[in-house]
């Protein structure tokens, strides 16, 4: 494809965006902690909306059992999740600036790794990890939002899913109680992930 055609094609990526949002989102940086069902799905929604910079973090590799709800393909099995997701996101928007963090995060990493992030999408699977991330983020960046996934397992019960503003900059998306021990379904996980992304986009364009 000729260079001019590529440029024209990419420039029109966001033609159907809500007016006034594209230029704002292009300058924003969003951190995504965890690239599983929530993180991979939210990241795709954010990039499609026009967020220009992402920092994605995960220590894990893609397994076959992930494919029922996470945004990977059979050819990704065995790849680092950050590398696979980064490649998929760049196919959506080749101009995306993305930083991959391939490590198991701990509380001491937050200030150092996410200094440039305007907002955090919490997408861990373990409750204790969600807990420390919220604590570490609110201590490091009290004026920046953290949007958490909490209660996304099972099927149906869409009416129990909601966004709760917990404190000035802490939001929870989900039903607040369903635990992954009952099983995870792509549709319900994706609803919660997109609630996180939608909340993030809304906050970013307001600022």
């Amino acid at each position, binding site marked *: 494809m000729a260079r001019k055609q590529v440029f024209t094609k990419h420039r029109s990526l966001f033609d159907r965006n809500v007016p006034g949002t594209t230029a704002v989102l292009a300058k924003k940086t969003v951190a995504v902690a965890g690239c599983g069902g929530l993180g991979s799905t939210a990241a795709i929604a954010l990039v499609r909306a026009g967020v220009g910079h992402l920092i994605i973090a995960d220590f894990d590799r893609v397994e076959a059992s992930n494919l029922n709800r996470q945004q990977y393909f059979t050819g990704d099995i065995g790849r680092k999740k950050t590398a696979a997701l980064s490649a998929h996101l760049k196919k959506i928007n080749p101009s995306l600036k993305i930083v991959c963090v391939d490590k198991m995060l701990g509380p001491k990493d937050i200030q150092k790794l996410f200094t440039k992030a305007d907002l955090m999408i919490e997408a861990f699977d373990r409750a204790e990890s969600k807990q420390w991330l*919220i604590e570490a983020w609110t201590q490091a960046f009290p004026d920046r939002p953290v949007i958490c996934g909490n*209660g*996304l397992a099972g099927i149906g019960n869409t009416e129990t899913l909601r966004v*709760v503003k917990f404190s000035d900059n*802490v939001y*929870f998306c989900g039903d607040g109680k369903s635990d992954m*021990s009952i099983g995870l379904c792509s549709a319900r996980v994706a609803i919660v992930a997109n609630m996180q992304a939608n909340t993030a986009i809304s906050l970013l364009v307001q600022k």
Partner: protein
Amino acid sequence: MISVNDQKIGWHPGMTAGDALREAGLEFPHLVLSIDGAVVPNNEIEDRALEDGASVNVMLIAHGG
């Protein structure tokens, strides 16, 4: 009087956030707690003193992501 997730609970001198959780029946392995909008680190909840009129918010955390 304090509130825990909008539930009114009697306050007493020396009352801590840990006491408030037990009185509200909200003991749970994983939760996030804020007092007047500020998140309290988990390892400080048990001993964090509450003032009369405090607004305590608690979110129970489920596994899954």
